[in-house]
């Protein structure tokens, strides 16, 4: 991978995302989780359509806030076809935007701005660690066939500061986040139903990531992950090194989907328990990406002690994921 | 000439008992008679038969050489219009016509011209002592005056038969005797046949002969 070029967009690939998850704390408030994602998707449309509206690329953005007091996610989404300067993604460095939503990389800083009527996030994320290339030098396999894979790197331990507004109440926040940047043209094998993923900023400065692709029978099709210790040494896990053991399920009253919201995960030397900030962290993005999934703030515990915080993502539980 | 022969009449709703049984009566022009009887004795039925408003079950009604029983309704109606006159207990003047127009009605119904019928009616009303009232409306007249107008209407077209049904029933004694006197005078002076149906003995006494109708049978008194 070459940076900063690979921070930018890769329009030749069919799908790409910049995925930020993290924990925030504000004065006199419980900690809460947040998630901001920008997708770039290329539908199959003829390129010879002269219309400036021709949807060669579509930019989709999601933002969610997990606040225990609300009991469920405060969720926003916005999507637009690239064009007219209203939505797009730059190559060369990170700049992806849809209307007034924007994620921009400027030096060692990311600036993220999300603004809607009933919620706004205005955050600065400082890069303190180098990119963590996932898989083999950033090439992450997603299945046994070898045809499904993505280009994938992570930026753990981003230092967050800024302001969030819910309805009319604004508060200053600070916290820690994790950014995934991934692009691919064939992400899922035909047999894949969805995946379970988590990324944890370990309290000691290390970073732990693991995922498993599930087949349509609920079994594990493929798995992967990595651990970068506080000293910067990276170990990549083989599929056999990883096991996800569901501990507790939660069923969404809204969609009826049943999610394993708490796991016991075996990943290399780790044996961690993932416990959600709250059970209802379901995202209904059927209007934009077409998917319903669970994406929530979790604590990682090991032998009773909290060893880090991060996010857990559970997809394909309502119906098999399609991209 | 009025001749009733073996008149028989029963109503379906009165059971088997006939209302009129074998009625016979011969009257000549100038005859002025009364028929008396209790309420429901059949007086009205007899009157209707004579007037041709109803038909008997059997028997004949001969009036001026025609048998009413053999005539159709139109012919009987024409005969009634031309040759009969009626006086009712309730006067039955048309409230929206003047006294003169009411009296002239029978003439006009017989096709007499407007002017002539007005003149003849006016003359008759004069004779009845009503010349002061000719342009008034019936609503403003007393009972006696009203009945005198009704008599004028009944006689204006010179009928051969005058039928009076309780003509004094709604009148006080003074008016009643005046009306009875006038009626008698007019019928007699024209040589008509007069039949007075009443249950008042005073009224009956003003006629030449009295017949009583009882149990459907007509007997001279």
């Amino acid at each position, binding site marked *: 991978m070459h940076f900063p070029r690979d921070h930018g967009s890769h329009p030749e690939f069919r799908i790409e995302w910049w995925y930020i998850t993290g924990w925030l704390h504000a004065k006199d408030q419980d900690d809460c989780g947040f998630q901001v994602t920008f997708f770039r*998707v290329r*539908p*199959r*449309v*003829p390129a010879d*359509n*002269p*219309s*400036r*509206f*021709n*949807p060669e690329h*579509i930019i989709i953005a999601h933002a969610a806030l997990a606040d225990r007091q609300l009991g469920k996610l405060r969720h926003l989404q916005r*999507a*637009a*076809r690239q064009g*007219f*300067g*209203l939505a797009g993604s730059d190559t060369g460095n990170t700049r992806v935007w849809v*209307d007034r939503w924007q994620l921009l990389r400027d030096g060692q800083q990311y600036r993220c701005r999300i603004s*809607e*009527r*009933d919620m706004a996030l205005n955050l600065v994320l400082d890069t303190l660690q180098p990119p963590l290339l996932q898989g083999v030098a950033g090439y992450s396999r997603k299945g046994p066939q070898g045809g499904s894979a993505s280009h994938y790197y992570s930026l753990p331990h981003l230092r967050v500061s800024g302001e969030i507004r819910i309805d009319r109440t604004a508060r200053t926040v600070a916290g820690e986040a994790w950014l995934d940047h991934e692009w691919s043209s064939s992400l899922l094998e035909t047999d894949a139903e969805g995946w379970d993923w988590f990324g944890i900023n370990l309290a000691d400065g290390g970073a732990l990531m693991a995922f498993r692709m599930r087949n349509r029978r609920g079994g594990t099709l493929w798995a992967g992950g990595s651990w970068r210790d506080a000293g910067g040494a990276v170990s990549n896990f083989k599929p056999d090194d990883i096991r996800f053991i569901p501990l507790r399920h939660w069923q969404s009253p809204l969609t009826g989907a049943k999610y394993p919201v708490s796991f016991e995960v075996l990943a290399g030397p780790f044996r961690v328990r993932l416990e959600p900030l709250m059970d209802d962290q379901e995202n209904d993005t*059927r*209007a*934009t990406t*077409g998917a319903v999934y669970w994406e929530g703030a979790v604590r990682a515990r090991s032998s009773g002690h909290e060893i880090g915080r991060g996010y857990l993502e559970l997809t394909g539980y309502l119906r098999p994921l399609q991209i | 000439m009025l001749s009733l022969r073996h008149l028989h009449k029963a109503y379906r709703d009165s059971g088997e008992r006939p209302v009129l049984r074998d009625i016979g009566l011969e009257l000549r022009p100038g005859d002025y008679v009364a028929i008396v009887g209790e309420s429901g004795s059949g007086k*009205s039925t007899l009157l*209707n038969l004579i*007037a041709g*408003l*109803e038909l008997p079950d059997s028997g004949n009604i001969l009036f001026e050489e025609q048998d009413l029983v053999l005539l159709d*309704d*139109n012919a009987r*109606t*024409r*005969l*009634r*219009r*031309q040759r*009969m006159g*009626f006086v*009712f*207990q*309730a006067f*039955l003047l*048309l*409230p*929206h*016509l003047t006294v003169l*127009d009411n009296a002239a*009605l*029978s003439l*006009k*119904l*017989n096709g007499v011209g*407007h002017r002539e019928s007005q003149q003849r009616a006016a003359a008759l009303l004069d004779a009845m002592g009503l010349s002061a009232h000719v342009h008034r409306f019936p*609503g403003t007249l007393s009972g006696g005056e009203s009945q005198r107008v009704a008599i004028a*209407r009944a006689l204006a077209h010179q009928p051969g038969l005058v039928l009076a*049904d309780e003509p004094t029933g709604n009148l006080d004694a003074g008016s009643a005797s005046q009306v009875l006197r006038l009626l008698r005078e007019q019928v007699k002076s024209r040589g008509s046949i007069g039949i007075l149906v009443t249950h008042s003995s005073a009224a009956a006494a003003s006629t030449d002969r009295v017949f009583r109708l009882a149990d459907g049978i007509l007997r001279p008194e």
Partner: protein
Amino acid sequence: MIRAVWQALVGGPLRAAPGRTLLAMLAIASGIALGYSVHLLNASADTEFRRAALQLSGEAEMLIRGPRQGFDEALYPQIARLDGIAIASPVLEFQASRSSGEPSLKIIGVDALRARELQPMLLAGQTLPAADLFDPDNIILSAVAARTYGVAAGDRLDFRAGTALVTLRVAAVLPDGSHRLPLGIMDIAAAQWRFGLTGVLHRIDIRFDRDAGPAALRKSIGALLPEGVQLLTPEAENLRSAALTRAYRTNLDMLALIALFTGAFLVYSTQTLAMLRRRNQVALLRALGAPQGTVLGVLLVEGALIGAVGAAIGITGGLVLAQQLLAAVGTDLGAGYFRNLQAALHIEPATMLFFMALGTLFALMGTLAPAIEIAGMPPARGLRAGDPDEQVNAFPLLAGITAIGAAALLLWIAPSTGLPIHGYAAIALLLAGATLAFPPVAIRLLKLARLRLPLPHALGLSRLLATPRLAAIGMSSILVSFSLVVSMLLMIHSFRTSLDTWLEQVLPADIYVRAAAGGDTAYLSAAEQQRIARIPDLARIEFLRSRSLLLLPGRPPVTLIARDPGIGGFAAALPLVGTPAPLPENGPPAVWISELVADVLALRPGDPVRLALGAQPQTHIVGGIWRDYARQNGAVVMDLAEYRRLTGDRQINDLAAWLAPGVSVNEASGRIRAATDDGSALEISTTAELRKLSLEIFDRSFAITWALQAAALGIGLLGVWLAFNAQALARRREFGMLRHLGMTRREISAMLAGEGALGAAIGAACGLFSGVIIGLILVRVINRQSFHWSMDLAIPWLPLAALFAGIVFCAAMAASAGAALATRQEMTRAVREDW
């Protein structure tokens, strides 16, 4: 006490003659049923329209709308980027012509990603794969559209862009009821590309940010809008679509009003008669010691009950009638305005209650005056036998004259635009005034005339003159119904005659050619025009370009017609109203505006007017005002050459052609078709066909009014029947006496028929008089205000005379039929009855 009075006045008569009470109820029911059913249909159509419009505009707070040919899409990013705009959703909206002569389809091209924010129900909650949504070969149809064309998902559908063919695949059919109009939905990019509309938008829907100051935002939006593009609220947009049919629906409302009015009058007459009939009973009860208040109360309660039950029957009947009409002719009562609108009846309890209350109120009002009169009558007078009192009462005459005066005043101060409320109020007042004042006046005149009739009619006449109040009831019911019928006949006849003349003037050529039936996407190119111009079979050709033009604020766009002026110029070719303005040699180019445009913009010949045709708005001069029955939203005519000079647009939609001698229509049509790229797409009609079609549409629009007129006449005759039926009982002794005096049954019937005929003739004569005045109000005030078109008054004398004779005859029959019960038998006994 109350129970005894109720028993004597209401219970007893009800048991003895339930028919009379039933009739009074039916009178109310028929009025309410007619009014309610027309209202229901109207309201249902209206709701459908609003719902359809709302579904399309969704949750947008404002919208930007351009003319039919659209505006430059560059406006979209400018608007979207404005501070304070939360969502801007670009929309393409056009009528796509079908190739096979089928009706055109309204297609909206949307950016689904934008539209979902503002019109969440656009796809009726369906989630479609993104691939289907963006596929440029796809179209999504509403259920009504799929039914109209008889296609299902997966089928192909052909459209026409210019003269080229566009084939689309039906990707999905939305569930029934989600869109009630025939509608196609496409991706905006696909629609721009496939229909040759690249670079064009028709609409931008907008939602503001929470904290945006709408006033300031509106100002900054306004600064960006080119001329001819407007910023509207969704309400204004809804009104805009409703405005199309507003005038027609106003007329429907008027019909409902007329039906109600006729019904109300019938209630009044039946109740009056019912009261008069019971004067003896009331007098008896009063003599026995019943207080006046109790009697009055009982009578009023009875009236209200009759009204309530009658209204309930009427509402039920109205519902059934509306359902039948909806199934048979549709919500527009067959006029063809809301074609394909899939409507269900919208029954609102509030409206139902309103009509219920209306029926009860009418009955109460009808009862009030006569009830007060008989309850307050001295018992001694009431006990006397004979006809009810016929005291001369000046009240109706005075009230009537006041009402007529008020009507005249209303008309005098009536504004010339807006809804013709003044006109309707004047009609109602005039009708009420005529009903109250005309019969007494007519009877007085008749009395003065000292008419002399032969027996038995002399008797009838004298009775009529002596009992003006009873007579007036029968007369008035004829008056009301006849004047309504006369006014409608007058209006329709004037309209039809004017339309016929107009058609003759606007269709001078032999054949008329249209690029395709309906739709915005069909036209003939310059090359095709040249080929057509070279056809030797055509002696003369006039080309016509029509497009829409936003000109009148808050109203739908007007039609701009650019055409060849013809030999004598527009002053000769157009059906002008008034004199044209003298046009200076080097003045601005002239335009010729329709009456609507002249009314709304208050323009007169010679006035300047600015039109945004080309890049720069230009000042034109109004050459003259012409009458246009074809375009309800207004039209502006200008010289085609001038139009081309201003816009550079060389396309045309229509052409008119005069055939060379000896050339048949078929030959010429064939040549014209051969001269175009796709001749089968042309619609070619002869003048005769167009005229016939126009008149057919006209007749269909007014077909329903015949039914209403018939209903009005029926109700009027029912009034006569009731009046005579009510009198018959009181007159049995009169008939009996006349039988004794030698009148035949037939003569008595003839006398009654004569009375009825005379009353009807007077009523109809009065009705003719007031009807002509109302007709004038309809022609000169109401139509002018609702449709903004003038018409020449034409009185259909022959039909009116026939109708007059017919109604007099029918009234005679109704009168003798009404009295038949009393004359049929036992008249001879009546002479001995004592009351």
